């Protein structure tokens, strides 16, 4: 399937470009993202290639700096979510019995509470910075991850090779680390990519709802400013469009990468898909 393989590399490339922009933001951005660098609401010109906002800040510079916040929200959130989900899922699925029962009942209850409204309330009260926001999202997302990993571990835990290794005299820790974990890693990888995509979108959504970290530039807050302060009424596309387009493009690249990666590691799906 060459098509899938091409999309795999292209999407991976796009993600790398975003990472590079985030890393070298100070070098790429022509202005301080918070500084007043011209007249407010100026249309694009040579100095401000995307014009300025109502506070006369350079939109392009803010866009570049905003990449950092987006990637931190996505990847830190995904890392925490996946770590929690993997750990919880393996413990719950492998030990089974009462441990599993307790974890699953707890999750059942947590799953009944819609996570985004819960996240909003948590955000209001913790008033988290961007890192804490990522941690919060990761924690809530990790609860769902536990279920997904667990369902895979349940079948692995009774697989002959696990029972056989137990019969060899191996301890539980050894079996979980050497036999269970490597077999759920591909799933964990896929989950990581899709979680990163999801948390970027949600994190920027928080900014859009006014729950962002005021100390950092993020695309969500940029969209919020543009929509709330006249961007739509005045039809200032260079103010409205770039941050949303940036997150949409990144989200697409990650989604594409995720599906291509899933195809790669899952030969059964590959056969079935095409």
């Amino acid at each position, binding site marked *: 399937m060459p098509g899938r393989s091409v999309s795999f590399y292209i999407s991976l490339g796009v993600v790398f470009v975003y990472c590079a922009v985030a890393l070298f933001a100070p070098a790429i951005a022509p202005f301080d993202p918070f500084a007043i660098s011209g007249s407010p609401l100026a249309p694009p010109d040579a100095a401000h290639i995307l014009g300025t906002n109502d506070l006369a800040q350079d939109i392009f510079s803010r866009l570049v700096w905003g990449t950092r916040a987006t990637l931190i929200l996505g990847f830190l959130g995904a890392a925490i979510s996946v770590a929690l989900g993997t750990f919880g899922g393996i413990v719950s699925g492998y030990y089974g019995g009462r441990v599993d029962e307790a974890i699953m009942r707890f999750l059942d209850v947590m799953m009944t509470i819609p996570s985004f409204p819960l996240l909003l309330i948590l955000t209001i009260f913790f008033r988290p910075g961007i890192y804490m926001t990522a941690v919060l999202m990761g924690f809530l997302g990790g609860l769902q991850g536990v279920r997904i990993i667990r369902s895979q571990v349940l079948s692995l835990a009774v*697989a*002959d*090779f696990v*029972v*056989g*290794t*137990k*019969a*060899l*005299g*191996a*301890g539980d820790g*050894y079996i979980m680390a050497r*036999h269970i974990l*490597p*077999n759920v890693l591909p799933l964990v990888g896929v989950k990581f990519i899709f979680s990163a995509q999801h948390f970027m979108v949600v994190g920027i959504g928080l900014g859009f709802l006014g729950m962002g970290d005021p100390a950092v530039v993020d695309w969500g807050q940029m969209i919020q400013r543009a929509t709330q302060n006249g961007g739509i009424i005045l039809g200032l596309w260079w103010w409205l469009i770039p941050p949303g387009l940036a997150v949409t493009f990144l989200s697409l690249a990650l989604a594409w990468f995720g599906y291509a990666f899933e195809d790669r590691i899952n030969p059964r799906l590959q056969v079935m898909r095409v």
Partner: protein
Amino acid sequence: MMHGACTMIDICDLKTYYSAGFLHRTEVRAVDGVSFGIEKGETLGLVGESGCGKTTLGRSVIRLIEPTGGRVVFDGTDVTALSRKDLRRFRRRMQMIFQDAYTSLNPRMRVSESIAEPLRIHRIEDRAGIDRRVRDLIEAVGLNEEHLNRRPYELSGGQNQRVVLARVLALEPEFIVADEPTAGLDVSVQAQILTLFRDIWREYHTTCLYISHDLGVVRAMSDRVAVMLKGRIVEIGQVADVLDHPCHPYTRLLVAAPVDDKEFSCPVSAGAPAMVEVRPGHWVEATAR
């Protein structure tokens, strides 16, 4: 009571119950009071239809499933009384081979890693020693060094079962429970694997509990045979005795013996079911009237 002097495994009134259901908890008696012994170097065949409790019995004997009651004495050691830690160390001496070789091997491990794993778990050899042992073992089961770098999905069913055998033999176990190790294999591959098993068990003087639903295989592989029905052993004895002169009605059904054979009729018990010796070494559970 049913075995000679040099008993390797002595199973006494072994019980394994499961409970299922949420509102209406029901108890399934998978193994319901089983007693027998296996002598050193002997292979005991265990036959019965699927769901009769053969697999549970096999796993309970080596405590891969915790039995509900009863005792298993292994060469003088009460396995059922071992602590978890002691049990893990003791596992070197007793091993298990499963029906599906492919799922018995971690799909992400190379053959060499799979065979070396038991040696590493028990810290038996150093690095070089493990390498040497792995090479010896792969040859012993009829494969060669080029197979060592493969993964299970690159091997056939028969080759995988050989790898499983090498992995199990690495610990030089004295007792092996083989649970239908050739059930999924073709006849010609089955013959290869079974002859290999037989030769190696003879060579190592391994004691074996061989579980199968195939009477032909059991006849070829075992010295004695036990017939299991609904969690109980209903007939046990020398292979030829039991399969050629079955007494219990179920055994007779299994081997398709003529129904009205008066000579080998099943003993009848007035009270609770009990084992009766119909011929030397051939025990049958008396049917209740």
